């Protein structure tokens, strides 16, 4: 272990913890809000079961707008909202607010695209069997799209880690912010590089885990 990592180990662990909190909440938001939003977006498309031009266009526009913001600007733009929700716009808890907003928009778009790959015939068979919308979603759509949904979540998670590095601007902390403040701003380039290596390893691990799981559950 390089001395410099040992020297800063307390701070590093705290930063990793902060990253986990921000990314963890993002994943939860993606799963519990992004997945339903993406599914609804898919079902409202033309020719799908809940075809609804107005609902699709408005939701599509909102998702696009959120995703068009440079993330740093979104964080700043959301400060009043964050303050309203959390009571403060500073700190790790406050940082989870913009993170969850982008997480929902990001994952819902990927969910919509994953569901587009489910063969239309499978949906038609489901309808012909008398399946309800709920049945179609849980017993057909998610079953057929599950590998794509896992891969999308992998991609999203890696993006969330990247987004989290920006959260230093509102005192969100995290490993990326640590690298910038201690490594870059204090001219400890070696420390910055070590942190980058940690992040690379981390991302590799997530990617590997995601692909392995996706492959394992794909029986098609």
């Amino acid at each position, binding site marked *: 272990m390089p001395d410099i990592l040992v020297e800063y180990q307390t701070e590093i662990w705290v930063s990793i913890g902060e990253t986990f909190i921000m990314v963890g909440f993002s994943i939860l938001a993606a799963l519990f809000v992004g997945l339903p939003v993406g599914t609804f977006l898919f079902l409202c498309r033309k020719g799908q079961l809940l075809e609804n031009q107005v609902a699709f266009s408005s939701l599509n526009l909102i998702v696009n707008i959120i995703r068009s913001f440079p993330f740093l600007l979104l964080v700043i733009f959301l400060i009043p909202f964050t303050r309203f929700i959390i009571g403060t716009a500073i700190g790790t808890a406050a940082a989870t607010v913009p993170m969850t907003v982008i997480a929902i928009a990001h994952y819902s778009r990927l969910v919509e695209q994953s569901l587009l790959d489910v063969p239309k015939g499978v949906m038609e068979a489901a309808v*012909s069997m008398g399946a309800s919308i709920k049945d179609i979603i849980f017993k057909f759509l998610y079953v057929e799209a599950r590998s794509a949904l896992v891969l999308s979540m992998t991609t999203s998670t890696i993006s969330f880690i990247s987004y989290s590095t920006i959260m230093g601007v509102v005192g969100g902390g995290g490993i990326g912010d640590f690298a910038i403040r201690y490594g870059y701003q204090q001219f400890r380039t070696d420390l910055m590089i070590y942190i980058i290596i940690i992040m690379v390893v981390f991302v590799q691990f997530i990617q590997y885990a995601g692909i392995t799981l996706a492959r394992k559950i794909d029986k098609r």
Partner: protein
Amino acid sequence: MITLHTVSKRFGSFEAIKSVSLNIKSGEIHGIIGASGAGKSTLLRMMNLIEHPDEGEVIIDGETLNHLKGKRIRHMRQSIAMIFQGYHLVGNKTVFDNVGLPLELAKVPKKDRAKQVMESLRFVGLETLKDQYPGQLSGGQKQRVAIARAIVNQPKVLLCDEPTSSLDPNTTAEVLDVLKRINEEFGVTIVIVSHEMEVIKSVCERVTVMADGQVYEVIEIEPTGVHKMEHSAEGFVKWLRLGGDVDHA
């Protein structure tokens, strides 16, 4: 059993079905033949209201279904099974779970499902493949799984949309044989849409000839090979063009 009364359907400016009336008798195997684009699949899909007619009525067992909504329409579909050219099995579910789907949707308790699923699989001769996934099966096996899935909750009617069009002649014969047995042993009314005359002639008792969204002729195929038709000259020509035999009667 199934009556379509002056049904019409448009897709944009294209008239897919032009005021068609048709009566399918209980317990028969009824074929619908026609070239592609004739509207035969659309007509079939009206029988379980996957496609809603713009005009006209769909009557099954004396009940007009057109205006059914939500739960009632889903309930109706549980007794009218359907199979497709592309099988449409759920690739991430085993054969056993695929066949069990209609029972799951009908909220049959899990412990009661297994027996019915196995009976159904035995009927199509695939009980040994129950733990396989559809991706591991041949086309004919997939279609037999789809048939097992269709009959697992004892439907009154089985709608078949080009059921053998992706299969080779031997496999086609196997699948048609299974359909015939379903009709004989359970008295299920079967409607088969196909563009292949051989398929239609080998299993159907009556055949509807379609072209340009209209019904031209309803032909009875007797076991002796003699066909009775009230031929309109046009219907007769369409039948011959599709490869039908000349009227021997």
